[in-house]
């Protein structure tokens, strides 16, 4: 246990030191950007860790849930488009209602009569009615000023609500997916979720009336002030002037205004980023506290028992499928929250940016490297891996440059290496994953309960 505490201390203090070094030697804005994305990654990894580390569910569909979270940001925070609502809103709602009714009827009929033909007939009829309303509606919505809107828009609520909504949206999807797939064996589950996440993305990309599809939604409202506005706010200017009064006084009077302007602009950037850091940190802390409380309660004991031995846990009266579904939903909801946070931070929703390498496999690397089953492990994993992912690129160039510096600059090999240095990042990530898995298989912070 003491060894664990030492590891905990060393790994976190090293990470903090690294970030501080970035701040001192490169810039604080970069440092905060990295920290903010590390925090989001940590939350995403936490969600996956709950599924994998607690319950052994191998979910390779993280990308889909992150995208759903991101989609909810648009649906919540953007203003509605009245013209589009007028053009096809009603029909679209009818279509969606009929779709829901069809599904409900099919499920009811299946349970009541067990007749496949009846169910299929219902689905077919429902499909054609839905499609009749739907194709009309989607066309008229999408033709409303397609370059700017072409979608129904959102609810126009404060963007922070969308973090909760993102969680719920992802949870709802996870419930549906879990209902279908959780009976499957681990590797089948993995590939099924991989496929389903692709389907989710295909729908988001192609249903423009929802969130504009690949046309992207930009200028999403922020939960924090804009740098430019901050720079023009009186209290902020005063505060910075006071803060830097000493260093300003040294300068000649002529230069003071320019210098102050520089300070204000720099401070406004940091201020905005720090506000995000604050928001993200509170979400992360809240989730960690909740997760830890749950894990150390009888609930957590039950979940660990299920992971250890499903047959025995079932014989001891625990409903495995129900619990797996619960965990799948909770973990996916957390991923959804992180997805919503990411889109809020980026200020735009671009469905094209969701690719498995970045949103599924990278998160898995975080979980494994951090230490599966340990909440703080996924936090440190998220930090370390994101840091590497961002910083491996300049290091790749640096390594390529250094290792061939003895060669002539016209040398083919050197040129090739320098031109292809950005791909060192991929090799590097793979190596880190393999090395950690091999030499520290429990990750940086091993699961505390597993003392075997």
């Amino acid at each position, binding site marked *: 246990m003491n060894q664990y505490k030492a590891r905990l201390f060393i790994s976190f203090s090293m990470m903090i030191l690294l970030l501080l070094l970035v701040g001192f030697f490169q810039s604080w804005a*970069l440092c905060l950007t990295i920290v903010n994305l590390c925090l989001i990654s940590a939350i995403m990894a936490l969600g996956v860790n709950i599924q994998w580390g607690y319950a052994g569910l191998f979910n390779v569909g993280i990308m889909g849930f992150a995208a759903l979270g991101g989609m909810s940001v648009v649906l919540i925070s953007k203003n509605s488009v009245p013209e589009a609502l007028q053009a096809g809103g009603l029909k679209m709602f009818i279509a969606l209602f009929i779709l829901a009714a069809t599904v409900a009827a099919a499920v009811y009929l299946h349970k009541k009569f067990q007749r496949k033909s009846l169910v299929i007939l219902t689905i077919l009829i429902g499909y054609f009615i839905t499609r009749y309303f739907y194709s009309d509606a989607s066309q008229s919505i999408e033709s409303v000023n397609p*370059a700017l809107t072409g979608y129904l828009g959102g609810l126009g609520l404060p963007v922070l609500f969308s973090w909760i909504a993102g969680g719920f949206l992802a949870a709802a999807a996870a419930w549906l997916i879990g209902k279908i797939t959780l009976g499957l064996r681990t590797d089948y589950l993995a590939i099924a979720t991989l496929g389903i996440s692709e389907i989710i993305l295909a729908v988001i990309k192609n249903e423009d009336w929802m969130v504009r599809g690949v046309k992207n939604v930009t200028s999403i409202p922020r939960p924090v002030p804009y740098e430019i506005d901050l720079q023009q706010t009186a209290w902020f200017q005063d505060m910075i002037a006071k803060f830097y009064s000493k260093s300003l006084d040294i300068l000649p009077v002529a230069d003071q205004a320019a210098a102050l302007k520089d300070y204000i602009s720099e401070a406004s950037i940091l201020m905005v980023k720090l506000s995000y850091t604050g928001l993200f940190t509170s979400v992360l802390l809240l989730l960690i506290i909740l997760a830890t409380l749950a894990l150390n309660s009888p609930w957590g004991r039950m979940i660990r028992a299920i992971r250890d031995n499903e047959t025995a846990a079932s014989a001891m009266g625990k409903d495995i499928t129900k619990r797996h579904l619960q965990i799948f939903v909770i973990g996916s909801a957390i991923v959804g929250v992180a997805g919503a946070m990411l889109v809020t931070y980026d200020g*735009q929703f*671009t469905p*094209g940016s969701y690719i498995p390498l970045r949103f599924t496999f990278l998160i898995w690397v975080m979980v494994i490297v951090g230490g599966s089953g340990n909440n703080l492990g996924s936090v440190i994993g998220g930090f370390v891996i994101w*840091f590497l992912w961002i910083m491996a690129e300049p290091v790749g160039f640096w390594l390529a440059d250094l290792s061939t510096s003895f060669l002539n600059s016209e040398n083919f090999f050197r040129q090739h290496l320098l031109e292809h240095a950005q791909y060192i990042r991929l090799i590097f990530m793979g190596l880190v994953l393999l090395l950690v898995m091999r*030499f520290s298989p429990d990750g940086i912070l091993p699961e505390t309960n597993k003392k075997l």
Partner: protein
Amino acid sequence: MKKCLKIIVVLLFAMSFSVAGFAAGTVKIGILQGFTGPIESLTPPMALAAELAINEASDSGAFLGGTKIVSVRGDSTCIDASAATAAAERLINSEKVIAIVGASCSGSTTAVVNNASVPNGITTISSSATSSALTMIKDNGFFFRTAPSDARQGQVLANIVIDRGIKQVAITYTNNDYGKGLSNAFTGVYTKLGGKILMTASHEDGKADYAADVASLSASGANDLVVFGYLDQGGKGIIQASLDTGAFDRFILADGMIGPGLTDDLGKGINGSFGTMPGGESEAAQKWAKVGKASGIPLDGPFRDGSYDAAALIILAAQAGNSADRASIQKHIMDVANAPGEKIFAGELKKGLQILAKGGKIDYVGAKDIEFNEVGEIFGSYQEVEVKSAKFETIKVH
């Protein structure tokens, strides 16, 4: 094992220090492109073209009294907005670049402009972000692009198609904001002019097989296929599959599809296909062709000329304000890009720098006939090109 972990830790630390040397009398220009990701194959020559301008100016010795310029590359990944922002932050705040050439794709460019360029007050000139949404971006005058908006190209191309008497087409577009935007713009104008679109279908880049796409496009009954895609991605896959099955033999192409990469591989099969590609007066294009050829950069793809121009504009603007200060660069971009002044073409940066040093005025024409409108976009003239005996030939300029 400990050794390996130690190496990782050491590398981690190395990363936090990794600031390249900052020699006195040197300024840096950031080149932020999607080096990895879906357009990873388009970006390396674009970066090379920008670096060509940088080296030309730096070697001339005429820049700010002999100041050297070096380039710093950053990977905007094209699709990952967060990674793009972080890379931009690194260029701006750690590498202290004076301005940025980039980013590549419209999505990552929007993120970079909103989250890094505007807050930090740094000029960003993209040579390939063509989304029409970027026209409306709140950039406080810090964002320019040497690629015209898709809306314009769609219009020009639709006119050309109608002029050629083609009244029925099928469209396939790459499923992103570029393809979709272009397709929307084209469809609007084309149908207004009396054309009929028999089918519009998107395709995903980098997929395994395009036989299904071609099969249904061909079933629409159209004889000509409009392809809004990338020449080494799905767009080429579609054309190849069409030729293989004999579904179409004439293609209507937009800028992303035009380049020898297409004609070299598909050869005479696409003779008679035509399209548009941003590009100016033949004088500008000819001079660029000469400069580009001498440097060995493959000239056959899109956006290379624009990248050269983007870097050149930054350098000239710095010279015009006689300062590598970020704000000063932003103020002078419009001055050097637009008339009045002596016309400067690609390969003539030294001349331009010298005129500016003497206090004269220049009108940078560059490789792409640069002329910015009030929002910092080029209006853009387009070359109508046609494939004749397996080569793209310019028919006329629109």
